[in-house]
């Protein structure tokens, strides 16, 4: 066979390569194109041109558009190669036929087409594949000028389109990151530090001012004198970044608001071009005002706690000093001291329950009397409205109640089986100043005799609470029962 068309195949013989080889030896009897020896000269020239090119090319000829292609195009065919050679165009590319038919028809009508990055879903490896092609169909004419087929130079641009798409996606992702970043970010360019970009957090920080295209000095005039403009100038001039921790910044955070004290963690990062020149500054950071205030609050609390602890230790020391006197036997003094310490601790408990803000008179009384008198506490009655005492007054009051009930249990109306105490208080608002009237009235106890000397208890009841309350205090050792009264301005001013 090859011998037969050998003489007529000089147009192929000039070419090397796989496609030239199979075109030469293919059995063309079953192809719509017929044997190459009988191909018209126009087709032979086109085939020769195609085989001589390194650019992917094919041509389709005659009614069935029999398909011929070069080595470079065979890669585009995938598994369709080499069976595609000589087959009708439609049979080879049936999966994209609807997409390309109008273009083919246009070329066959004599008008060339040009398409860039046309998406086509091909099946060339046994599965559907998204591809993109840039190509041109041009009409192929016979010797008489009639269009007998089409010629195509094409290149697959799938990788390029994918790369562009990935770039776009990546850029979008970065833009989203920038826009939605919890920290504030701004891009400043040039020696005047002109805003190029500012994300949402940054705009929130400065009360949504217009920034793009304006300089920092224009946008943020309140920063003048706070050192930031000089810092930016320095970063721009030296190319050295600046990192600020809990930097104090006084800034207008709301468009019509006051200038506010804020604290920021931030970095000024110089942006340097490929020639090593600083072209701008990237500013980014976090608003740490809440954190800073929380820290300050914590330091304040710790100091306050320290003060309270030291003060309480001093109170304990004062109690000890006044309890352990030379004229009191030490086992007795220890018992008294323990009880006083307990009363103090119990007053602190009451205050802690109210966040160290206040304590109720009624609670202090119940607590103090019960701890001291035990069962005899049942013989104490209470009558009065809700009144809260501020912390220090509450502690003094609790200590006074402790001393009163201790005295009642030891010598007064709770020392026998039948006596009792009637405790009552009320708020008198007749004058322009609200006053607290308090009464502790013992009855039914043994005949009272005034104590010989003044101990800590009496001192606490008479002077301690009086001083604390700025009121008049009266302690009467009447034979029928101890009577203790307070008339003082209402501590803290409100019930």
């Amino acid at each position: 066979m090859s011998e037969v068309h050998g003489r007529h195949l000089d147009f192929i013989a000039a070419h090397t390569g796989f496609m030239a080889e199979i075109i030469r030896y293919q059995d063309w009897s079953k192809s719509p194109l017929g044997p190459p020896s009988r191909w018209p000269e126009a087709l032979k020239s086109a085939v020769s041109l195609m085989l001589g090119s390194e650019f992917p090319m094919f041509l389709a000829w005659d009614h069935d558009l029999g398909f011929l292609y070069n080595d470079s195009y065979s890669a585009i065919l995938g598994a369709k190669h080499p069976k595609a050679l000589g087959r009708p165009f439609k049979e080879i590319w049936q999966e994209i036929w609807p997409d390309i038919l109008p273009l083919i028809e246009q070329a066959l009508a004599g008008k060339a087409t040009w398409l860039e990055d046309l998406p086509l879903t091909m099946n060339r490896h046994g599965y559907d594949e998204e591809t993109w092609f840039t190509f041109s169909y041009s009409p192929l004419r016979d010797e008489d000028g009639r269009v007998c087929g089409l010629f195509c130079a094409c290149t697959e641009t799938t990788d390029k389109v994918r790369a562009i798409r990935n770039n776009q996606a990546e850029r979008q992702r970065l833009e989203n990151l920038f826009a939605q970043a919890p920290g504030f970010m701004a891009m400043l360019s040039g020696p005047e530090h002109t805003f190029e970009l500012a994300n949402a957090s940054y705009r929130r920080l400065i009360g949504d001012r217009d920034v793009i295209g304006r300089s920092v000095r224009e946008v943020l005039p309140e920063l003048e004198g706070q050192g930031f403009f000089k810092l930016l100038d320095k970063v721009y001039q030296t190319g050295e970044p600046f990192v600020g921790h809990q930097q104090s910044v006084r800034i207008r955070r709301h468009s019509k608001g006051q200038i506010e004290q804020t604290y920021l963690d931030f970095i000024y990062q110089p942006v340097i071009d490929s020639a090593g020149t600083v072209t701008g500054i990237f500013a980014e950071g976090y608003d740490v005002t809440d954190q800073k205030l929380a820290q300050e609050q914590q330091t304040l609390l710790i100091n306050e706690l320290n003060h309270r602890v030291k003060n309480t230790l001093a109170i304990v020391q004062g109690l000890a000093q006044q309890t352990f006197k030379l004229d009191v036997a030490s086992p007795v003094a220890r018992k008294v001291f323990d009880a006083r310490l307990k009363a103090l601790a119990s007053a602190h408990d009451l205050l802690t329950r109210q966040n160290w803000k206040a304590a109720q008179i009624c609670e202090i009384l119940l607590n103090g009397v019960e701890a001291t008198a035990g069962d005899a506490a049942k013989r104490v009655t209470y009558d009065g409205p809700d009144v809260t005492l501020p912390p220090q007054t509450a502690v003094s009051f609790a200590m006074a109640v402790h001393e009163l009930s201790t005295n009642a249990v030891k010598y007064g109306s709770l020392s026998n089986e039948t006596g009792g105490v009637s405790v009552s208080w009320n708020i008198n608002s007749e004058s322009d100043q609200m006053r607290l009237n308090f009464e502790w009235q013992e009855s039914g106890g043994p005949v009272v005799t005034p104590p010989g000397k003044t101990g800590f208890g009496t001192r606490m009841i008479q002077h301690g609470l009086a001083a604390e309350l700025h009121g008049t205090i009266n302690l009467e050792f009447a034979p029928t029962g101890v009577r203790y009264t307070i008339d003082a301005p209402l501590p803290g001013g409100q019930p």
Partner: protein
Amino acid sequence: MNNDKVVLVVEDEPIIGFALMDMLQELGYGKIELATTLAKANDFLEQSKIDIALLDVNVHGERSYGLANELRGRGVSIIFATGYGDAEYPDALKLVPTLKKPFNQEELNAALSKLS
């Protein structure tokens, strides 16, 4: 020689105040006045001549610096008593001797002896 000196103790905790009064008494001071509020202390200041004042720094949540300045203006020797670890006094009061709570009679005596 301390017997004729008037000492003002400003302390909002009566129990601590009493203990301070006892300590001062044992150290031989004859006239001791306890004020548990700054207002009381001011009242006393207007009525009597004071030689020495022992001031709690935090009196019912308020600093006693104003009172301290007033006292110093009148030539009263003052000593601060505080529970704060490192109290930051205003510049004018930086050199005022300070007793850290809780303190004992010896420390109190030492501080008093250093006063001119």
